[in-house]
């Protein structure tokens, strides 16, 4: 039950919603379409479902060209952000709807419909709500009913449009894990849209990162986090410090700061380079054996970890320090590391950088590098 999207393009007037999108999803995968609002992810999902038609390009389901097939030939289950439950029908009738509207020849008998609906309601653990009406349910319950309703017709593909977008944070967290377990159980090829990178990382086996109607990167959550292909991916997935500067003579220069690079990187000799450094790839050191010196301005406990904000301290020659985009450097420490260092606002500490990835200007992706600790 694979999905292939070939060079799909869709415009609304001057706005390009989908710009030459190509994408392959294998049978049984659980894939996230991730991106900021207006990036085209919902348009792509609705095009695959058949609710929108692209201007050019094609959509293949299981190898068959479905670009212009009507919705009911696609065998797609769809879950809407705002549930779209039928408020004038009971929960039972909502789930039974897809079975009842089947053509007479394919419609299961009433007893079979009852059995199937109760089975699905059991699957989403809400059988006790069968007689209620949707307005009487909580948001999380409604979305689970919507999922049961979509699964009732045994779709080959499950498409979810921001399924948890309208829910409270804690319900959202609970439903994420629940969706992943459900997918492990059913193995139906699933594609879900989200703008929440944490949600995508937690649920999906692969992530498609989109921006301005294009696919920026496609890969496993770990791959996308560790080796982002573009500056956009790097900043959109997780936090990152961006240092403006250049590489020359075996070192990265940012402002008056200098970060020595491994010898193997001598080939990197480009005028303008931005260094992207994750907050947790920065180690805090007491003492002089550090790359850079900073002063801590703000300490934010975040449960198991601590976020620190620091500003550069002028070096011995009185230079202005490194140039970051925000003017500050964000550092993330584990709770133990933070306690061991006994840090507080106003302390001066040294930084050591462990991992950097580079982008020249805005595009051309490059490999990230690890900076080994000096011997």
């Amino acid at each position, binding site marked *: 039950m694979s999905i292939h999207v070939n060079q799909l393009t869709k415009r609304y007037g001057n706005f390009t919603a989908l710009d030459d999108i190509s994408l392959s999803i294998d049978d049984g995968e659980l894939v996230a379409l991730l991106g900021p609002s207006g990036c085209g992810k919902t348009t792509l999902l609705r095009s695959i479902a058949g*609710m929108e038609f692209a201007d050019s390009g094609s959509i293949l389901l299981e190898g068959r060209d479905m670009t212009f097939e009507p919705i*009911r030939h696609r065998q797609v289950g769809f879950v*809407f952000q705002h549930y*779209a439950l039928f408020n004038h029908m009971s929960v039972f009738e909502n789930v039974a709807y897809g079975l009842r*509207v089947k053509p007479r020849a394919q419609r299961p008998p009433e007893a079979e419909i009852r059995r199937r609906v109760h089975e699905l309601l059991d699957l989403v653990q809400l059988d006790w709500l069968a007689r209620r009406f949707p307005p009487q349910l909580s948001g999380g319950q409604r979305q689970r009913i919507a999922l049961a309703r979509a699964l*009732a017709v045994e779709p080959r593909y499950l498409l979810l449009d921001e399924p948890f977008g309208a829910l409270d944070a804690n319900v959202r967290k609970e439903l994420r894990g629940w969706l992943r377990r459900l997918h492990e159980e059913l193995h139906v090829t699933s594609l879900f849209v989200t703008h929440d990178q944490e949600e995508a990382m937690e649920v999906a086996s692969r992530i498609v990162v989109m921006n301005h109607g294009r696919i920026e990167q496609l890969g496993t959550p770990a791959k996308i986090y560790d080796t982002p292909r573009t500056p956009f991916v790097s900043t959109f997935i997780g936090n990152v410090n961006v240092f403006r500067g250049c590489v020359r003579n075996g070192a990265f220069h940012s402002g008056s700061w200098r970060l020595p690079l491994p010898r193997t990187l001598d080939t990197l000799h480009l005028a303008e380079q931005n260094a992207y450094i994750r907050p947790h790839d920065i180690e805090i050191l007491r003492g002089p054996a550090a790359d850079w010196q900073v002063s801590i301005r703000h300490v934010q406990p975040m449960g198991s970890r601590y976020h620190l904000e620091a500003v550069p301290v002028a070096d011995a020659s009185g230079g202005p320090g490194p140039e970051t985009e925000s003017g500050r450097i964000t550092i993330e420490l584990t709770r133990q590391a933070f306690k061991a260092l006994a840090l507080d606002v106003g302390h001066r500490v040294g930084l050591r950088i462990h991992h950097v990835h580079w982008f020249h200007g805005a595009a051309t992706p490059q490999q990230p590098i690890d900076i080994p600790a000096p011997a």
Partner: protein
Amino acid sequence: MNSTPHRHIVARPQADETPLVRYLLSSLAMAIIGLFLILPLVAVLVEAFRDGWQTYMTAITDRYTRHAIGLTLFAALVCVPLNTLFGVAAAWCIARFEFPGRSLLTTLIDLPFSVSPVIAGLVFILIFGAQGWFDGWFAANGFPILFALPGIVLATMFVTLPFVARELIPLMQQQGAEQEEAAIMLGASPWRMLWTITLPRIKWGLLYGVILCNARAMGEFGAVSVVSGHIRGSTNTLPLHVEILYNEYQFSAAFAVATLLAGLAIVTLIAKSIVEWRQQRQWESASS
């Protein structure tokens, strides 16, 4: 989903006005309602029974009155279903699709409200009249439109065209298309979707529009007056019949027939309040 503003109005804290101002304002409102609504209604009833029960019964069971009742019912029976069909179709188009001329269509639906009914009647005279576009062709070929039943139905249709559509457009826009999309995604045919999802969701709004449409269809005077020709026992509707009786100085009979129209108005108001109440409840449950 937008019912929160309504609730704010309902739950609004008592205004800052002094009790005296509030008392004066409500008295003024009551006085105006009494003067312009209750008093005329009472006057109709008093005048109708001035010459006794017997005269009243004679007036409303009179042959011409019965014919006028029949004609009015017939016109409503044709116009209301047709305008209901039109209203649902137009509201569906406008609320669900983007197409060139969409705002023009929305404006045109309001045209019968903004044009004087007399003008509406004259338009039909200009089209179908002896000196009109069709040069009396229909009448010459044994199918008269003016001063006959088709003219009355056409004029009534024109005047009552907006009622159902006007009621449904904002309702369907507010409800959005998601539930309908969900039905299609689940394999329903468009026809099945219309009967199981769209119509049940708009039924109270639809009924409300139908009630108003019906009240207007039965009560329309101006446009029908122009095209009907006032032929007694043939093209006289109830409102026209009231006028004729009054002009013939049969005041009690005129008011007696008028009580029928007043009764229709009261039934309409009661039905309208019930439907409004049900609709409000549905909106609240839909947006909770």
